[in-house]
Structure formats: C-alpha cells, structure tokens
C-alpha cells in the first residue's frame, strides 16, 4: 500500500514538498513509518526525533497501527497562539 504523509512548516521546507508517499508491503506502525521516513527522505532525518506523527488528525504513539487509506501527518513542534 501507499501511505501519504503530509508535511508542515520546517518539515515541508526541508523535504521540499507537501506530501511524501511511502510504498510499504504490509501494515506498519507509526514507529516503523518514522524510521522509513528518515531513510527515504534524508533531509527530514534531523527533524524526525522532534516531531509528533498524527493519524487521521489525532496524535498517534509509535505503537499505533497505520492502515491503508489513513492520513498521516508530520507535526513539528507547534507555535500557534
């Protein structure tokens, strides 16, 4: 399946795009995805230890399962307000 990961702010700038598509052979966890992102988009590697990942608009732990069709987002430390 293909997992789409949306990028924001510095993550978007570092990767040079708004969405990263990652092809995976089977279901995986958010933690697996974090590791894959670092490998497949090396520009994101320094940021990834500091980001939270969200699945379907909710913060997810590294143990959360990602299924086909889920929307994943990479959330660097926020600065709204």
């Amino acid at each position: 399946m293909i997992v789409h990961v949306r990028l924001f702010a510095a993550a978007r700038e570092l990767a040079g795009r708004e969405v990263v598509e990652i092809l995976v052979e089977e279901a995986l966890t958010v933690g697996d995805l974090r590791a894959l992102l670092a490998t497949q988009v090396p520009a994101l590697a320094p940021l990834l230890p500091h980001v939270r990942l969200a699945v379907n608009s909710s913060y997810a732990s590294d143990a959360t399962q990602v299924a086909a069709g889920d929307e994943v987002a990479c959330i660097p430390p926020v600065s709204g307000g």
Partner: protein
Amino acid sequence: MIRLTDAPLDSQTGIAQVQSTQAGAVVLFLGTTREFTRGRQTLTLIYDGYREMAERELQRLETTASERWSLTACLIEHRLGEVPLGEASVLVAVSSPHRKDAFEAAQWIMDTLKQDVPIWKQEHWADGQVEWVHPGLPPAE
C-alpha cells in the same frame, strides 16, 4: 465555538458571543504580533496550520475547558496567513458565573493550544531572515 479564519479577528463580536446574564465574568485573551523579541525586530508573521486537525484540537480544547470549569460560553479563534504587527493571531473568550473559572480556563486553553494545536508561525525578521518557529528544536544549521 471554534473558528479558523484568514480574516482579522473581531474582539467585539467575540465578547458579544460569550457575554450572558448567566455569567458574572468574561475573560478575553488576544495574542498579538509583537515587534521586538529580545531586541530583534519582526516585520510580520505568517501562520500556517494543518486545518482539519487544528479544528479538531481546538474543538477538543473548547469541550474540555467548558466541562472542567463549567463555562457559560467559550470561543476560540485562530487567524491564519499574515498577521501584521499589533494585530491578533488568536482570540479566546470565555464566560462563567465566577471570575476564577474564567481566568483559569482562558489560561489553560492558551497553554494547551500552544502545545497541541498544529499551527505554526513563520517569523519575517527585519534583518531579512525568514524562519519557521519550532519551540524546543535545536537551531537549524
């Protein structure tokens, strides 16, 4: 009530939405674009957000605060796009029977918003630098 908008925030309308004969206290908070940060001058700020999730998170803050402090009414608004100097990027307006609850709720909403709501500001400094603000991150190379 929560709202993300690209337009200026209107505090008068915000207050009117929470003021009530059931409330004895209204607290309004505005976060505004400040010109100087530790002596460094800001030209303007641009806010971006993960809109669907930001709306969900703001809704969660409103629901949680309304229950925890028995608020009469609660409004949270965030502006996206450019927010010029002196203008408001965020507006929180709450009302409650007694003032302690309104103050505590407004502060908790702001503290939590700044931790959890996926919105980012981009500083446009007078010295020409442009940078996304990510609290706690080691400085970019």
